[in-house]
């Protein structure tokens, strides 16, 4: 069959696909790990023009059709992670081992630069806080504008720092406090989603103790849904830490009392701790909600 796609694109697609998950987000977008936000976005848009399915609409693509849409979606996902300061830092930290030497160095430099920027902001804050009267209000106003720029550039961590200083300088200004709350909330949300994702990745690869740490972080950050406590309890059970598992399940049940999955995990923890009565109570509650819950029934029988 004739594939109606330029040969260089065919080759690139097959090369990307052959490497599967071993290709880093940076390589996928054709940039180095030192690229800034603007360069990442431009690279993604340039690549999209080559690899978006619409660019080859109603062309004969054969088996490459599926590869093309898969490749574009991977690029979009890579772009999404790399265009946010925090998720990018996390990605760098967790995947640096697989980077090329150059990219590893660049990621290291970026982490360093981030620390340096934080230190600089800290010094500036100290200096600004010593200013008096109207100068304080003016400085707060300037910092607020600056923070908006940082947010727009995906640098939430810096924005938070700057906004905190601005708030101290001019506590009466409502927009500063409101923006700070908003950015902080967003930051927590992004970190929670990222931690949950990482927990699942680690659990799937059998790395239970690290997975547990990620799930715990996700719970701390109030990730939505009951996936994080359930994951934590599962990992604790896998590690033989029954008391820990019971604790995670109980934490989850506080927020999601109707979640049978958590109750079954709690029952398993109690069985491990030889607290049969408590296990029975939990299982009875599950069976009340869902009389045919097979796992609960199986656990309940020997008790």
């Amino acid at each position: 069959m004739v594939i109606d796609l330029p040969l260089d694109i065919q080759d690139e697609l097959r090369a990307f696909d052959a490497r599967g998950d071993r290709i880093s987000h940076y390589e996928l977008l054709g940039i180095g790990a030192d690229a800034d936000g603007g360069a990442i976005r431009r690279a993604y848009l340039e690549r999209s023009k080559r690899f978006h399915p619409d660019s080859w609409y109603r062309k004969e693509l054969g088996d490459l059709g599926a590869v093309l849409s898969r490749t574009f979606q991977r690029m979009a996902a890579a772009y999404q992670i790399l265009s946010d300061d925090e998720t990018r830092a996390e990605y760098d930290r967790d995947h640096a081992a697989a980077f090329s030497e150059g990219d590893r160095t660049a990621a290291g430099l970026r982490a360093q630069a981030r620390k340096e920027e934080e230190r600089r902001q800290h010094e500036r804050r100290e200096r600004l806080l010593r200013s008096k009267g109207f100068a304080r209000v003016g400085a707060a106003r300037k910092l607020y504008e600056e923070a908006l720029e940082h947010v727009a550039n995906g640098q939430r961590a810096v924005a938070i720092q700057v906004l905190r200083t601005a708030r101290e300088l001019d506590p009466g200004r409502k927009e500063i406090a409101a923006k700070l709350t908003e950015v902080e909330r967003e930051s927590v949300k992004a970190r929670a989603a990222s931690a949950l994702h990482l927990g699942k990745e680690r659990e799937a690869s059998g790395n239970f103790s690290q997975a547990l740490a990620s799930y715990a972080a996700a719970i701390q950050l109030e990730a939505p849904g009951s996936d994080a406590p359930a994951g934590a309890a599962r990992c604790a059970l896998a590690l033989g830490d029954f008391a820990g598992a019971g604790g995670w399940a109980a934490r989850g049940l506080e927020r999601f009392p109707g979640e049978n999955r958590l109750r079954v995990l709690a029952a398993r923890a109690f069985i491990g701790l030889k607290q049969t009565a408590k296990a029975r109570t939990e299982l009875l509650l599950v069976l009340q909600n869902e009389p045919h819950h097979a796992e609960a029934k199986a656990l309940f029988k020997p008790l």
Partner: protein
Amino acid sequence: MIPNRSGYRLTPSVVAVAKNGKRLVGALARRQAVTNAERTVVAVKRLMGRAFSSRALQDTLPRLPYTVIAGDRDDARIQLGDQSFSPPEISAMVLTELRLDAEAHLGEKISKAVVTVPAYFNDAQRTATKDAGRIAGLDIIRIINEPTAASLAYGFGRDFPERKIAVFDLGGGTFDFTVLHLFKGAFEVIATGGDTLLGGEDFDARIVDWLAGPFLERHGIDLRKDKMSLQRLRDAAEKAKCDLSSSTTSEVNLPFIASAQGAGPLHLQASLTRAQLEGMTQDLVDRTLKVCEQVLGEAKVHPGQLADVLLVGGQTRMPSVQKAVKSVFARDPTKSINPDEAVALGAAIQGEMLLGDDGKNEMLLLDVTPHSLGIAIAGGFFQRIIPKNTVVPTSAHHLFTTVKDNQPSAKIIVGQGENELAAQNELLGEFMMEGLRAAPRGGVDIDVVFDISADGIVSVSAIDVQTGLRQSITVTSSAGLTEEEIKAAAAANEDWMLGQKEDPKFEGNKAAVEKLIKEFEEFWPRLAEAAAKGMGPQILQGAQAALSVARLQIEQRDHEGLSGSAERLERMLEALRATVARGRGKGS
């Protein structure tokens, strides 16, 4: 932009069934709305893809002059005389009309279309739109979002450096706000948001209430209860609103609007000022600004970074809307696009981008899904699977495991929305996986794949992980049309279109005359030569006049005149040919 057969570039989305059973669409339907309010459908966009019992639809109902009833599956049906229609069927009537307009203008069959929808439309509304296209006999190759389409019209053929823009789209029934990033022909939507129940019609409704309220107090008659007077009120309200965009006061004059027992006819007269109108609609404008703020936050863009703000939709002509936009963005909105036509132009550009010349992928649209997609999980919670503002097309996986021995089936409830509780979000459907393999619990893993197409339409498929076999999935709950219903409606529409075909005698005459005109045109150089050589310009003038008459008759579908023209032109051509041949013979 192609004008319709009445010569206008805009066709209102109004459909009516006249008392004689004839279907009227567009300006014709709007003109007769007052005398035929109960059989005139306006604002059908608000009913598209809505379940009858849904809050959105129930809130809209009291304001509609026509009757909407519940169908068998909690779908909405519009009652027109003794017939009832689904919203996509009504929408298809408008699409069919536009298709016939385009075919008349271009002289060729139209089979494909790009259709625009409000960006904030959900899956059900988009699916209903696609169904409308199929009923109208059109292959809808893409559904694009209206604000995005406007941005294509803005960016098309212009060369500018990388920039961010925002589109503020306040149309008749819906509001959308979208932030985009433009770079070398790539149009990337960063974030989008809106309100599908906020538009120009809500502004009109405020004026209607302002007019009807005092009338009710004084005369004890609620004009909004009578379909005909409600339609007159609405027309007057819309007119006053438009007037107040250019002047500061507007007079409303509705004589004989009602009659009171014993007191004879009653008239309604009022004077509305721009300030009054702005006062009574301030909260609506504020609602739009709230959406803008939220979307800017999601896009992580602050107003100072925007290179331009585009205004789209007729309601953005209102001075207070423009003032509000100006205050939020600290700049004048751009005047480089036409708020009524930019969206249609954008759709045409997208069509060209998809189907145009090979290898010229200079422009690309990267749009996003406006709502998070997720499933209902235990405890009634909503688990997000694809977050809002994710670029489309996209897909995501979710692993399901059987919880019972030999479990035969499993159900997934799919919804769209941002609420933590599944019940608070829009239900897309209940998907049933049936005929699962017999295996102990936990023995069957099913990988469920959620796809969102470039049209923003969701599809769900499932694969048995252990066997690699595709698992069948059926939708068990959805208010959308079934495949059979769409086919039946498309067939009915096809019949109607065949019925619309002019009678064959006229078509025959038209073809004959068109052939003669062509022969005349081919013969023209020799005729002109003969005229120059001494036969005089009169023969040219006579022929020219006869030809213009014939062309006019075709355009006006003048049946009898055309058959006369056919004969006249034929005689004339014969005579002229003979004369020219004689003249030539003489000359040589």
